[in-house]
């Protein structure tokens, strides 16, 4: 902020206006430019789509046909994607469509199929807990809506400026400031994948053994260590075909670039000397605007560096196994983070979130 004000003061009076608007927007004193009872077109569209989304969600949780619930979930998630678009977060919207509508719902349908969920109306779709659930949900909704409306009734989103969620902006932010959590997330996905395989393999090993025999012995424990050993043994070979890792080269180049750009003094150069010439575009963008994130908290860098070092040392040994295909950048990121350079500071929040699970 101080830097912005300083530059404004140097630039002259013309620069004072945006600074002023930014200030008033923060305090919420600019309500007079918007009419509460005169909704804009975006608001109407948001409201309508929101109604559809909410209705679809309600049907999802109340319908007695299980497959229909999954399909109504598609409607609700798609509606949410539209809401994202209306909020100018286009990248999130497409990710929503891709992952949720495209894969998660399909997974859920597979799950329904594999658990032999009944097709058609099933009378016992709701448990006996529904009235308690309804009470809790309505009470929570009332409290939340009250709080939210009370808190934000004079707050407005300015959707007119540059799109906040365009792919370029999101990518720049993601691979500039969020690289390490992002990579940790890939490890999480890998772990989830391995876990899912372990769980389903265990079931397979269990089903292959005669059920009578395993029931006669008091505990089915002998099969458990077997399957566990087996899955661990397979871990290395599985990771090579990991879909997450398969997508990583695409991200990897970006992350390496972003890292090398953000801290010119970091020892990343030794690993990626070719990258320095490539992406000249992000550099000015990230120099003009984000002076502020690095500056307001200069004191926190020391401790966050140590935090990061811990976080990085955690996944570093894990990733060393599966990262042969295109994981040079991942190591580069880890190496770059350890000296405690500048991009470490904003990453601490999510990095800890990644580290905690």
């Amino acid at each position: 902020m101080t830097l912005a004000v300083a530059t404004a003061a140097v630039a002259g009076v013309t620069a004072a206006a945006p600074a002023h608007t930014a200030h008033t927007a923060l305090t919420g004193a600019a309500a007079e430019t918007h009419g509460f009872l005169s909704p804009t077109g975006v608001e109407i569209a948001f409201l309508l789509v929101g109604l559809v989304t909410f209705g679809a969600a309600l049907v999802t949780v109340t319908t007695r046909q299980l497959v229909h619930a999954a399909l109504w979930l598609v409607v609700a998630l798609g509606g949410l994607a539209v809401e994202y678009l209306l909020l100018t977060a286009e990248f999130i919207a497409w990710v929503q469509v891709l992952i949720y509508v495209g894969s998660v719902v399909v997974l859920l349908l597979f799950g329904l199929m594999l658990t032999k969920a009944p097709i058609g109306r099933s009378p016992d779709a709701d448990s006996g807990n529904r009235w308690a659930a309804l009470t809790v949900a309505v009470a929570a909704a009332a409290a939340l809506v009250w709080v939210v409306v009370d808190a934000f009734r004079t707050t407005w989103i300015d959707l007119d400026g540059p799109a906040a969620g365009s792919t370029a902006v999101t990518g720049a932010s993601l691979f500039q400031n969020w690289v390490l959590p992002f990579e940790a997330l890939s490890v999480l996905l890998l772990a989830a994948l391995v876990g899912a395989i372990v769980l389903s393999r265990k079931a397979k090993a269990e089903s292959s053994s005669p059920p009578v025999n395993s029931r006669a012995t008091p505990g089915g424990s002998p099969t458990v260590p077997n399957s566990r050993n087996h899955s661990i043994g397979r871990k290395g070979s599985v990771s090579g075909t990991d879909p997450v890792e398969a997508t990583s080269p695409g991200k990897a180049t970006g992350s390496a670039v972003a890292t090398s750009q953000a801290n010119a003094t970091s020892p990343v150069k030794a690993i990626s000397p070719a990258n320095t010439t490539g992406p000249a575009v992000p550099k000015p963008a990230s120099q003009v605007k984000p002076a502020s994130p690095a500056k307001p908290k200069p004191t926190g860098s020391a401790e966050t560096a140590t935090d990061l070092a811990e976080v990085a040392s955690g996944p570093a040994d894990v990733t060393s196994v599966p990262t042969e295909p295109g994981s040079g950048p991942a190591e580069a990121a880890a190496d770059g983070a350890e000296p405690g350079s500048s991009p470490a500071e904003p990453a601490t929040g999510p990095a800890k979130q990644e580290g905690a699970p």
Partner: protein
Amino acid sequence: MHLAYPAVLAALLFCTGLYGVLARRNAILVLMSVELMLNAVNLNLVAFDVWLSEAAQDTLHSGQALTLFTIAIAAAEIGIGLAIVLAVHRNRGTSDIDKLRDTAEGPEADGPDSDAAAAQADRAGKAEAAA
């Protein structure tokens, strides 16, 4: 745009998901409801990110980044959750949540002496379930 719109919609979606988690019997439907709750949070994140990126000139885009993370984690969660549901279904023959009551106090657990017996029966039941 008024910030209350996305916020209220997120709250309502969250509570809808909450209801689903609490009221649905099939474990996969419960997972769907969890997805609804996660998406409500995502909507909040996106809305506030858009608001803050303009109002406070926040260029970190933490809201959108976290939304992406949430989506990824949700994908992981749904994978693991489905695997667990499948394992349970394979072992128990059901995926109804209210039938998985191994942690319940046994009905015959009446006196101080029968506690041990109940625990033993419980353990036996669990072993059987694991088999």
